[in-house]
């Protein structure tokens, strides 16, 4: 189920009572709990070793409350992102987070890995939308933090702690989200096949522009087409505007006049253009997620494509996030050297580099979660305080 590791058995609790019983049973028997939804990110983290139960959360898929006029929704954590967006779309609303593989990814899973995509530039990430959360603790009790209202500072903001926690602080059962109205209009501009020199200039221009793009992505051009084969250091860029009809029209024409390059209107979703290739697990052999100060992205991309075995890259340039994948097999020493060099760069630029996917045997050799930082010790204390028996996803995350 998770690389070479298989839990004792897979359980699919129908409700909180059953889930509570399962947790108490695991705790009594000294077993671990491995929650999952769509299973799209099971490859993330170290391979677990402690025997335990796989917990399929997809029976928790109900909409609990949707007061659309309040712009909030409360749902169970096992609902798929696509189903959630479908419910919201009926009221002309949406959760503006680009979660990969939305048809199978669940909200709980998206929260556990802090899933995001290009729209984070304009709309932020899950921490800006989760206002209430319920989760099972190590005694099989359902506890909550936050609430159902958009302004709430009562108690500690455990919602934030759960986001990106890889399920190590309990099993998420229910979530309350702030949502946004769907934009009236969208406009996508695309610039194809340019070189490294232009990259820096374009990214700086998009920082200073009078327009307000909600996504600014740079990708390696050869990643966007099967043929013809392009050189590794050719880039394409995608800029997305979402706003009122007038504002989108104005921004499209304004950016075209600010930029001296020939931008084309893109009528298809940019996800179709390049994102799908980056989220298909079947094609990925080695992958990373790098974060850094946005101004250093351009140098990072240029250094990366200069390797003799360069990866495919997608960069959310306004946020300093870079996803890299190699579809071909690489020798471990080459991979290790490249990743080390890239990680050093990110650390020098206030960030880090997580190896999101690699052959299982390599996980013992590589720092999967990146360069340890000064606050990791405090994270371990938090984990020990909340899950002292290490019931939840032991061994996968940087907290041990």
């Amino acid at each position: 189920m998770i690389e070479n590791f298989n839990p004792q058995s897979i359980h699919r609790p129908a409700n909180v009572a059953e889930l509570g019983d399962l947790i108490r049973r695991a705790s009594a028997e000294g077993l671990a709990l491995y929650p999952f939804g769509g299973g799209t990110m099971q490859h993330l983290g170290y391979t677990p070793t402690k025997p335990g139960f796989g917990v399929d959360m997809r029976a928790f898929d109900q909409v609990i409350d949707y007061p659309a006029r309040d712009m909030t929704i409360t749902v169970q954590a096992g609902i798929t992102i696509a189903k959630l967006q479908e419910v919201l779309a009926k009221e002309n609303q949406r959760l503006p987070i680009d979660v990969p593989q939305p048809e199978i990814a669940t909200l709980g899973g998206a929260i556990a890995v802090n899933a995001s995509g290009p729209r984070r530039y304009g709309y932020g990430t899950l921490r800006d939308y989760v206002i209430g959360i319920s989760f099972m603790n190590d005694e099989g009790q359902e506890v909550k933090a936050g609430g159902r209202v958009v302004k709430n500072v009562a108690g500690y903001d455990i919602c934030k702690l759960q986001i990106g926690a890889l399920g190590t602080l309990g099993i998420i059962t229910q979530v309350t989200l702030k949502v946004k109205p769907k934009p009236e209009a969208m406009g996508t501009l695309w610039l194809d096949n340019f070189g490294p020199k232009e990259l820096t200039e374009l990214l700086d221009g998009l920082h200073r522009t009078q327009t307000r793009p909600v996504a600014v992505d740079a990708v390696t051009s050869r990643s966007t087409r099967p043929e013809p084969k392009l050189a590794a250091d050719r880039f394409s860029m995608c800029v997305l505007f979402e706003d009122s009809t007038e504002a989108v029209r104005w921004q499209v024409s304004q950016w075209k006049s600010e930029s001296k390059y020939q931008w084309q209107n893109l009528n298809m979703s940019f996800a179709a253009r390049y994102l799908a290739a980056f989220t298909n697990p079947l094609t990925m052999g080695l992958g990373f997620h790098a974060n850094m100060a946005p101004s250093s992205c351009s140098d990072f991309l240029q250094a990366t494509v200069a390797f003799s075995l360069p990866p495919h890259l997608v960069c959310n340039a306004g946020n300093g996030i870079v996803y890299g994948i190699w579809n071909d097999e690489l020798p471990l020493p080459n991979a290790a050297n490249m990743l080390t060099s890239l990680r050093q760069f990110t650390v020098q630029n206030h960030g880090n580099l997580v190896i999101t996917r690699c052959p299982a045997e390599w996980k013992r050799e590589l720092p999967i979660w990146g360069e340890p930082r000064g606050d990791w010790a405090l994270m371990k204390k938090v984990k020990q305080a909340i899950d002292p028996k290490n019931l939840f996803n032991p061994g996968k995350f940087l907290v041990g």
Partner: protein
Amino acid sequence: MTFPMPLLDRLCSFLGPDAVLSAPSDMLVYECDGFTIEKNRPDIVVFPTSTEQVVGIVKLCIEFNVPFLPRGAGTSLAGGCLPVGGGVMIALSRMKRILEVNIRDRYAVVEPGVVNLWLTNHLKPYGYHYAPDPSSQGACTIGGNVATNSGGPHTLKYGVTVNHVLGVEIVLPDGEVVQTGGPAEDNPGYDLTGVIVGSEGTFGIVTKIWCRITRNPQAYRTLLGIFENVDDASNAISDIIGAGIVPAALEMLDRLILSAVEKRYHFGFPLDAGAVLIMEVDGLEAGLEREAEKITQIAKKNHAREVRRANTEADRALLWKCRKQAFGAVAQLGYPSYCTQDGVVPRSKLPHMMRFIQQVSEKYKIAIANVFHAGDGNLHPITLFDERNPEEVQRVLAAGNEILEECIRQGGSVTGEHGIGVEKIDFMPKLFTQEDLAMMARLRQAFNPEGHCSPEKMLPTAGACAEPSRFQAAKPGRRAAV
């Protein structure tokens, strides 16, 4: 347990005598914050100017087993700065430098004593601002904003403090210095920054903050809707949101507050209006006029008598001044004291809550004025009274409690932005179960296991109204008990 005098000497020699206050008359200034109903004096107030000094202070407090807590400008409206158990108050007002501004990467680094408005003013020449703008921003500090996860009138569109803090440097209660987050987003691991924001000083002393800075919008439209009654104004709000518009701000002032504000600032508010709504949209100029028109239509559909526009920058500034300095204008109403409540309900429950507050006012014979963030359901009923009259104070507390109980009943919260502090500790068990609170207590254990830092804040002690903690017992304050 009396206060250990050697600690005073050690602090004076460590920080210099100019950075230490201990005379009883000096302590008076620090005996309460904006929540004036509860008072307790610290034993010592210290004024560090660096992280290293904060570390030294914390270590000394541990050595002498004395509680300590941070204080910014003391504008807390929930007793967040109340020094329960006395001890050492660490005033951050001298750590007031803006350390770095990075426009390209859109962040600034500030010390905790930097006044909120100073940062925005500093960013003006670059066309940026710091988005969380509580009404007290001319006085409150960013460190304090971090402690309470402050809001303000623009949170509906822009979010609250935690959405604009990328990282902090914190001195933990054992004296260790840790940086969480920083200029780059998405560092692997737990979002410790996210949970430190809003922890009300119970996790340690924040000594540095990485703030996200926001580009100024290209244009604004600021409208003032004048309504005969609060119901119509509340329904207009609901319809605006229902139309898919997310205003930058949606603020309501009722008749009582209007009379105070008008007397003080002479804006031209009509004194016979039941309520006014400040409705602001911002963004790109293209399309903004149509949005403003839509809002005007909705207001009129809800029987607005008139919808005015702030046509110049000066008009807009004056309108916002009236709103943001409304609390200060309350003195015009002739009461010696006031107490600001802070409750939240789902937006759709606003009309009900406003009627409920009116009933509470009549029941307890306490005047209540309302000015608040209507767009996100965050109410600020302001009770007006004379604190020298203990019987009146009891009625004020009872009225406030009833309003908060109703907020809970309507699916809301007992604090939208001011925090739990000491004021609302008794409400925590009404909002959260014992298991929920036990989880929060576990989290606090990870940061503050010995309990020296900000004791008796936010979480009820085990046994609720039973024995006070060892710190409280050593130095009980004057509590206005209901």
